[in-house]
């Protein structure tokens, strides 16, 4: 009993621990990578229903091209190589691009992060990097687990 309370306290202390399936803000819906698509690039009803809404996703930050950029690629499993440097054949189809308001603080690519922001759907090519995305999170903030 006592130890349990202590653990709880400790986890609040670090501020990074999240309960699975919940967000720091209970009102924000959680979207899992495996729920994004029905099959191939066909978006799920859940994904479509959350278009334009604030969502939370959990994943890994792929190493960015350069640290001063304002976006990063969020992946289901750690990706060691930068998405722009490697031949695309090795890249998973279900990546999500997170756009932040400020230059990003790079988190190691093997550390889980919870990302919160507005879900944006549809084919889009970044004019600056030519990077193509189908699902984006804009105004993204993130916290390391």
């Amino acid at each position, binding site marked *: 009993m006592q130890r349990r309370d202590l653990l709880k306290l400790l986890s609040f202390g670090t501020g990074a621990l999240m309960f699975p399936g919940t967000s720091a803000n209970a009102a924000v819906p959680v979207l899992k*990578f*495996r729920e994004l698509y029905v*099959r*191939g690039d066909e978006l799920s009803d859940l994904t479509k229903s959350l278009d334009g809404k604030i969502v939370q996703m959990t994943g890994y930050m792929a190493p960015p091209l350069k640290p001063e950029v304002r976006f990063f690629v969020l992946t289901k499993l*750690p990706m060691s190589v930068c998405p722009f440097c490697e031949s695309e054949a090795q890249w998973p189809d279900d990546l999500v691009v997170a756009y932040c308001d400020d230059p990003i603080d790079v988190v190691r690519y*093997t550390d889980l992060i919870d990302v919160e922001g507005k879900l944006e759907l549809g084919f889009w090519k970044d004019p600056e990097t030519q990077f*193509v995305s189908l699902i984006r999170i804009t105004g993204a903030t993130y916290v390391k687990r």
Partner: protein
Amino acid sequence: MKRFTKLFLSGASVALMAQAANAQQALPQQTDSYFVSAQQELFSKLAEQPNTGRAKNVILFVLDGFSIPTLTAARIYEGQSRGVDGESNVLSFEKLLPYVALSKTYTHDSQVADSAPTATAMTTGVKSLNGTIGVTQKVTLENCASQKGAEAESIFELAEKAGLSTGIISTARITHATPAAAYAHTAFRDWESDATLSEEAKQNGCKDIAAQLIDWSAGNGFEVVLGGGRSNFLPESAADPEAADKTGARKDGRNLVDEWKAKYNDGAYVWNKTEFDAVDAEKTEHLFGLFERSHMQYEADRAKDKGGEPSLAEMTGKAIDVLSKNKEGFVLMVEAGRIDHAHHAGNAARALADTVAAAQALQVAYDKVNPQETLIVLTADHSHTMTINGYPKRNNPILGIAGTGDDKKPYTTLSYANGPGAKLDEPRPDLTNVDTTDLDFLQPALVPLGESETHGGDDVAIFAAGPWAHLFRGVVEQNLIYHVMAYASQLPSRVKAETTGAVK
């Protein structure tokens, strides 16, 4: 003594044994359920008789990265997924392939192997250098010129020369190390398409692995080729059928799929499950399937594939339907290529799901052939660093928590010695409120190697059934696998008979 053994080996002796056991002095534990089931196991062992006939067919299952902890964990995982007791659960090959040996996987130059020389050990009978395929110890890594005179002939080449049918299946790229060891000879496993060939390799006339597959001159070529790796066969100018914005990888302009189609007008080329399902094995003499640009999907993700992919079991079944039409028999390799990839990612759930898929494929193969005339071998090329640790209670979820460490944090039953699951210069994560059974969970690791968990150097298991399968016993060298397959099928002498013009 000799007569005694013989008697025990005959089928009738089982009944005698059972009587003898009953006639013995009553033991206090003799009605215990564990005692009784192990006694039954003894009787079935006594009834087993070595098969010394000629193997008409040989099927080699290679479960890439299938370490012994992976075997145990997959057995528990499969049972628990079905809602039965996991620990006493039995995977198809544990039941169907009674002969087991331990395989020493070290290579000519390395304590811990990669998939290239280990597959070569199985397909050609020699140990060689890490990173090389279908060549002997005489080769120098990444040196094309050194390939000359270092080639080793594979059992698939022998089989084709002897008039048998041959097939290769992999859930990885079909140009990846394991399936490549059936047909390729190369000083470097990464030369999968001409785009990755070095200047030295081009200058000295070394061919990339995809081109070697299509240009393969043994017999009339593979009857069955099923796997991933489509981009290595298509030119940069060709759009990919599954992803319109992606193209092939080849820079030499060759469209190897078109070349294959031109070579086999009795053949069927397929790239998705619908086309695959429509193939009539009765009418198809050559089948070529490339279901993904790179590796095929993990079994856990397969249902979501855009173009649709057959399972390893479905590919195995269709392959045997095509191959078994040959009265001379066939040699088939089935690789579950992505157990290894999931381990490299530190993701035990996907590794276990792919192992279960391989067990299902083995069951399909066993049911389709005459086990009396088919040598079936199932093994791994090398191990990985996953362990099963702690003192979890019986029926604890295999992907669950085993206990609590001195740091008061929970630890999982499965963990890795190294890999992406380790934090860099930070205490290990607190898993108190984490669902460690989630498909995407990465098991904790000790040494941070973010790019990839490493292979392991411990021995792996060989399971076998059929003609001469009983030669797989004890602790053996990995390259013995080739020698038993060649001996059981008598392929080397059958080739000789052909070339000297002798009658079959």
